[in-house]
């Protein structure tokens, strides 16, 4: 193990904790959090992992410890993190509205979770790095916003989710400054993929999909596996910067709908209210940041990712969309029916 610890990975000032690497992560119960935890577990240089979330991890984890607690439960979150004495704080406890929880609950969990978890980590003298999940929703979309913003652009969110992400970023900046630690903010394009709870993924998989009628602007996505790989790289490399993480290329809403063989329905102006209501009844509520993406597009300049993380996404946006639709629907089996194992 000792020789592997001297591998060309920049672990920074871990000596403050006797050379141990201890990662505290929020959001471990989500699809992304569980995948990241299992990838981190396989790295022998990491000595301990503690996960927090309101739901248990999606898969069996070997080494990681998990504490079930609501991100809004201040005392439980603070106690778990301070007792653990982490050297790295990995904050994935960002809840997209209408993904795993209602819009309101998601916003509260995200906001309070960031305050308590990052506040607790800022109290731990052992922490030398913060890695934060954010999204390109923080840049906002309007005619006065950049079409393809890079990381140096001002964050001027124009949706609820974007606003709460900007808040999380600010909380993390304060926490990292308090500790004098490095801060990596990963601004992800919408994360979609098989089994990944995403309002956009669910919406695009409806049989009939409302879209803007003409000349829509494109959006970029990132596959859940690529997002997990980027987070693991960020934990290791820990650049003190914000990084946009998006898959190369883009698709328009019409194109995405047709790639899945769905029927696009042109919708304009106030008709979106009706479209959103019908979509919600069909089991796919559409939060405002998804409507914004459909009407105004959402891309970002991801060219810095290869330099800062020494890593690149493996799937293009078109491939991500195609894979989203290849996720087979549930097939119900009848009693006594013989199927291949």
């Amino acid at each position, binding site marked *: 193990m000792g020789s592997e610890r001297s591998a060309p990975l920049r672990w920074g000032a871990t000596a403050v904790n006797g050379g141990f690497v201890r990662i505290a992560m929020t959001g471990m119960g989500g699809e992304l959090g569980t995948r990241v935890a299992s990838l981190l577990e396989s790295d022998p240089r990491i000595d301990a992992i503690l996960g927090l979330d309101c739901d248990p991890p999606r898969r069996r984890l070997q080494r990681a410890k998990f504490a079930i607690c609501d991100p809004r439960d201040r005392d439980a979150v603070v106690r778990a993190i301070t007792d653990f004495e982490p050297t790295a704080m990995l904050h994935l406890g960002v809840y997209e509205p209408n993904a795993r929880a209602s819009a309101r609950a998601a916003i509260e969990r995200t906001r309070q979770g960031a305050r308590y978890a990052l506040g607790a980590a800022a109290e731990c003298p052992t922490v030398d790095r913060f890695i934060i999940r954010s999204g390109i929703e923080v840049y906002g979309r309007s005619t006065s916003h*950049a079409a*393809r913003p890079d990381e140096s652009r001002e964050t001027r969110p124009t949706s609820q989710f974007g606003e709460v992400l900007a808040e999380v970023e600010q909380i993390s900046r304060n926490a990292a400054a308090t500790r004098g630690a490095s801060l990596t903010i990963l601004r992800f394009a919408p994360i979609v993929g098989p089994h990944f709870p995403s309002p956009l993924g669910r919406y695009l998989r409806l049989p009939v999909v409302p879209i*803007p009628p003409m*000349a829509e602007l*494109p959006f970029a996505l990132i596959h859940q596996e690529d997002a997990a790989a980027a987070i693991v790289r960020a934990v290791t490399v820990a650049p003190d910067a914000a990084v946009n993480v998006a898959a190369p*290329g883009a*698709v328009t809403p019409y194109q995405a709908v047709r790639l899945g063989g769905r029927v696009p329905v042109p919708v304009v102006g106030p008709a979106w209210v009706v479209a959103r209501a019908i979509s919600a009844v069909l089991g796919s509520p559409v939060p405002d940041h998804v409507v914004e993406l459909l009407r105004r*597009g959402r891309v970002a*300049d991801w060219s810095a990712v290869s330099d800062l993380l020494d890593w690149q996404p493996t799937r293009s946006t078109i491939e991500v969309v195609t894979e989203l639709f290849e996720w087979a629907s549930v097939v119900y089996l009848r009693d006594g029916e013989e199927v291949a194992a």
Partner: protein
Amino acid sequence: MRISELAQRRVDGTFLVDEWGFDHDLTRVMSSLASFRWSIDADGFQHVPEAGSVLMVIGPRVKICEPFVVAAATRSQTGRHIRIAGADRVGATRGLARRLGAIPHDLREVRSVLRTGAVVGVLCTRHRFGLPGPGPVDPALISAALELEVPVVPVAVRGHEVTGRWSVTVGAPIVDAGTGPLAAVDVTEQAERTIVDLLD
């Protein structure tokens, strides 16, 4: 280009759109339609490289068709698509303009597009009070080209929307050593002067 292939790509969603919204198939169709409407005399397109990025400074801007005429001429002469900076400014037509290759009038966006090896067009502004000649060009956009060592070529365009007859002349690349704000101003002025010379 076969119409059936284009239609098939539209139906199954396999057409290509880049991150700024540029739609290759749609632009190809529109360029073909432009050849029915306009008769364009093109000259000097040997100065536009077959591959790699280049910045075209286009002037003067009197009517609304100039960017489209230069785009059609570039497509017919070199087979390359041009990305006009700032042609997406009108809100209502922004989506369509982006589909046809427009990009925002912004230094960082122009720099990103140039990095992809594209032909980028920068328009002279319109004179509002009847001054003669091409209006000024924003040197900030020229500095993007100088930073990336991309050739800058002046393009003069003139004609009439009523008759549909246009002439597009491309000048030799402007050679200037150095980068920085003053170099950008020098290249901008030289481009503006060359456009006036090409018009005479």
